[in-house]
Structures are given as C-alpha cells and as structure tokens.
C-alpha cells in the first residue's frame, strides 16, 4: 500500500460538489504537486488530509492507518499556508519550538532541534525577532522550520510561495527542494503555477473541477498531455480544432477533437521551406511579438488560425510585425487529442 491513499473522496460544501470520487496515492518520500486553477479542489484535498476539513465520504490512509476522522493534532501532519500564519506574539525561536513544546518534548532536545531547523532555513541571528519584524520570505522560512522540527509524517504546502516576489520565490523553491531531499520528507505541494509544479515535483497531479485529469512526472505531463485541458494548462500548447487543422493542411485530418502543437516545436523562417513529407508547412503574417526573457513568442496569423511560436532569444530582433513568414512543424509533433 502506498504511504498516503485517498480513496473515493467526496466533498460537498452545501450544494457545491468540490471533490468527485477522488483517488490518489502518494509514495513515501515523494514530492507530489497538486496543480490546478483556483477552485479545482486541490486545497480542499490537502485540508482533508490534514483533518481541517471533514470528507463527505471516502477514506484517507496515512502510513497504513486510516485517519479519515482522526483529530488533526494526532495526525502528525505539518502544513504551511500562503499567509505564513505565524503566531504574532511569539518570536522566531518560540514559533519554531511551539509544536515540540505542545508535545512536551524535553527542553534540551527542543533546543537542539530548533537550532538545527534555524540553520536549515538560514535564519541564524533572527531567533529573537517577532514575525512583524521579518520579510515575507523570512516568515515563510520560519513557518517551514516550525513544521519540520516536529518531524511530521507528511509536509503539506498550500500555495506557500504565492505571496512572495518572483526572485525570492525561486530561491525558496530550491530551499524547499533541498530540505525535502535532506529529510526525505513526503511532501504534497499545492500550486496553480505550472512552472513551479514543473521545477519542484517528482509527480504532478493535474486537477480540474474536483477530478484528477492527469498524473505523471513533469516530463510526461509536458510532452504527452492526455487531453486539451492538460495541454492548455501546461506548456502553452497551440490548440486547433480538427476541422480548422484540416483546412490548414488542405486535406481531411481524421481524429479526435483537437490537434495540439507546442509553440517551441514550430520552426519559423523568412524563406520558404519547400515541400517535405515529414513536415506540415504554413505561411502567414506576424501580428504579435512578446519578449519573455530567454524566449521570444511570435503570434502568426495563418488565415484560418493564430499560432504561437517560441524562438530562443539570441539578442537579435529577427522578425518585425506584419512581416510575411514561413512556418513548418514535424508531423510527429502534432498531437491529436
């Protein structure tokens, strides 16, 4: 049996059906991300595991024991919230030691473990500060330390980095990953940010409307989306209805509803590529140029549709607005969903 098992979880808030027969298994030591838009039930699933919400039906198992109706304080689950939720009247040291004090751990052990945790999250010298005197990133690190000192069976992170600015977020992401590796702590991370999910996870579960749409490692999810929702949520796929795609390639394309193409797999040039059996070729006018740092995204109008194309930014402005360009994409790269 897996370390954590959600079995047929149903959750209603009044009329609102939030979780629909959700099944999910997490292996010990795994870093799992629940990814989805807000309101998809990902946080609710996490809160059910923590015991902060009661499931309407179904069972939850942790480490071989059923915990569906257990009091949260006995579950030994650590959780970090978006709003940090530090105790404002306690300084950093006392915030971190709170859980151990509640569990009546001996003082010298508390001291040792708190010191370790402070070192781990890089907060040396801030022990005496109150939360109101810390920055958002520091507060979240205190929250992380407060969780890990109690050595929980599973660490739950409910959008912990959403309120933190982009640069700091990156460093906290890697800090969380490092700590996960160091302690081997099973972790479930909730986010709506696909990039964050990609960089952090061993396994991603993509959720929509209370249902897990697709599960897999970041590579699988990125290169083999199961349906157009997965394709649209991860990787900014170009999604073309099949009949539109048929018009583009001037013959009937047989298959499911949509053809999806990743923007970085389309080649762009100002010279006609010529015919090639392995490629689909199009031409059109550039109607949008969006520099995104390391890549530039061109939007090309090919009469029947708009296509996004990502090109590595080599510092040169290759194409101008309204310029006529030629596109081609390998037939294998057009995924039919």
């Amino acid at each position, binding site marked *: 049996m897996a370390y954590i098992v959600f079995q047929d979880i149903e959750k209603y808030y009044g009329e609102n059906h939030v979780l629909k027969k959700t099944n999910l298994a997490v292996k010990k030591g795994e870093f799992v991300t629940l990814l989805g838009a807000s309101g998809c039930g990902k946080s609710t699933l996490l809160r059910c595991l923590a015991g902060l919400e009661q499931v309407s039906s179904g069972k939850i198992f942790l480490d071989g024991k059923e915990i569906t109706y257990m009091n949260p304080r006995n579950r030994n*689950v650590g959780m970090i919230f978006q709003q940090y939720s530090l105790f404002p*009247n306690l300084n950093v040291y006392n915030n971190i030691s709170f859980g151990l004090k509640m569990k009546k751990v001996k003082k010298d052990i508390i001291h040792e473990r708190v010191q370790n945790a402070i070192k781990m999250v890089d907060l040396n010298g801030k022990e005496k500060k109150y939360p109101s005197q810390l920055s958002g990133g520091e507060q979240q690190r205190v929250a992380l330390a407060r969780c890990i000192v109690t050595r929980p069976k599973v660490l739950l992170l409910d959008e912990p980095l959403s309120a933190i600015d982009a640069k700091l977020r990156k460093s906290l992401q890697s800090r969380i990953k490092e700590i996960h590796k160091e302690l081997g702590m099973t972790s479930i991370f909730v986010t709506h940010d696909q990039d964050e999910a990609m960089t952090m996870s061993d396994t991603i579960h993509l959720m929509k409307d209370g249902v897990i749409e697709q599960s897999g490692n970041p590579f699988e999810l990125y290169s083999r989306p199961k349906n157009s929702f997965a394709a649209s949520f991860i990787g900014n796929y170009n999604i073309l209805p099949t009949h539109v795609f048929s018009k583009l390639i001037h013959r009937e394309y047989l298959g499911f509803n949509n053809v999806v193409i990743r923007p970085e797999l389309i080649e762009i040039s100002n010279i006609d590529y010529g015919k090639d059996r392995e490629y689909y070729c199009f031409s059109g006018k550039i109607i949008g140029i969006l520099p995104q740092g390391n890549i530039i995204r061109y939007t090309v109008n090919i009469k029947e549709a708009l296509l996004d194309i990502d090109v590595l930014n080599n510092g040169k402005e290759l194409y101008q607005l309204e310029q006529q360009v030629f596109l081609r994409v390998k037939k294998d790269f057009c995924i039919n969903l």
Partner: protein
Amino acid sequence: MENKKKYFIIIIRLLLIGSFILFWEWSARAELYNPLFTSYPSEILKDLVEFYTSGDLVKHTSVTLREAFTGLFYGTIIGVIVGLILGQFEILGKILLPIITAIHGIPQLTLAPVYILWFGLGLTSKIFLAGLMVFFHVFFSTYAGIQNVEPKLIESANLLGAGKVQTLVHVVLPSSMPFILSGIRVGVGSSLVGAIIGEYIGASAGFGWMIAYASSFFNIARVMSCILILLIVGILLNFSLDKIEKYLLRWRAPTNLSMEHKRNI
C-alpha cells in the same frame, strides 16, 4: 527636526494651560463673574494644602481608588473569562449575547440606588457598580477579539499538536490581547465613574461623597480640588496603561496603524 517639533508642541501646550489658569485667576479676582460659583486657582491651591494636612485627602482618595480598582479587577477578570467562554462556544455566545447587550443598554446610573439597597452604603455597592461597568467593556472587547483571531492560527496550533486549552492559552488569548487591552483602557475610566456615582448616591467617604457634600455648602474650591486630583489620577493611570500595553504588545509592528487609529476614536 522631529525633536524640535515635539518640544514646540509641549511648550505651546503648557503656555495654553498656563494662560488659562492666569485668566481664570485674574477674571475671578476682577469679579467679571461671581467667583463663588467657580472659585479660582489660588483658592483651590490653598484648599488643597488644607485638604492634605487635615488627612482627608489621603482618606478619600484611598476610598475611591480602592472601590474603583477592586471593581476594575473583578470586572476585568470576569469580563475576560465570560468573553472567552462565549467566544469559544459559539452556540452559547449566540444565546447569551443579545441578553447581555440588552442589560448593557440599561443606564447603570438608574440602577445605582438599587445596588445600594442590595449591598448597603459601604464599599461593596460601589465596587459592584464599578465592576459591572468595567465588565461590559472588557467582555465585549474580549468577545470581539476572539471573533477576530485568524482561523489559520488556530489550525496551525492544532496541527502542531496543541489541544483546546493549549490553543486558548497560547494562541487565542494573546491574539485577542490588543482587543482586551483596549477594553480595559475604557474600563479604567468607567471604574472611576462607577465608584463616584455610587458615592454620590449614598456613602460616607470618597470623592463622590466629598464633591456632593462640598457643593451643598458652596465650597467650590473643594470641589475643584477633588476634580484636580481625579484629573491627575486619570493621567497617571493612562500613562501606566500605555507602558503596560507597550510591554504586552511588544510583538506588534511599531508601524501597525490599525491600533493607533482605534485608540484615537
């Protein structure tokens, strides 16, 4: 620059008070009105000295302060406890809150004679009145404080292994402390009011009694002496409350304006 501004404000303030006292003294001596009704500073000072040397000052001050503080003590303790209980048990709160609000709506002054009937002319009736007035302030602010505790803090404490009582002591109570303290701050004033009203109605000592007694003899200098002392007591109490609050709420950001704003209301 900041310091200069601070001194400027203090100097202007002192000048304002000084000129008011001088004007009062001058206008009364010049008999612009009948000084019998207002007395004047030098008379008041003379009376204060006499008040003190006769031993009455200490006696009456201690009576009134004892009533007010004992009332403040019980009113605060009971107010916090009842506030915590009703804040913790939602249904109980919903049942009792309208009743307490309704009772609070009765002007306590109208009930003072009844309390004197119940508890006699001694200290008890004044302590009861003062305590009751403090209780309402502290109770309502404690209750509001508990309603305002961030739910995620309670969840965090719970997940970290804290039980109901531990959560109450370590999380709920400290988080509601700003509210409770602002209740006590108002309570300090009403405890004095309660004690003095009680003394007006029936007593043999205390400021209230002294003021009523002195005004019946047109001894306005004595009335003013009493008021002056109450003024000083009030200033001292507020000052010490400030210090206590600063200590108890030292964890709060100094730039937290929400509380400053509240205090100004």
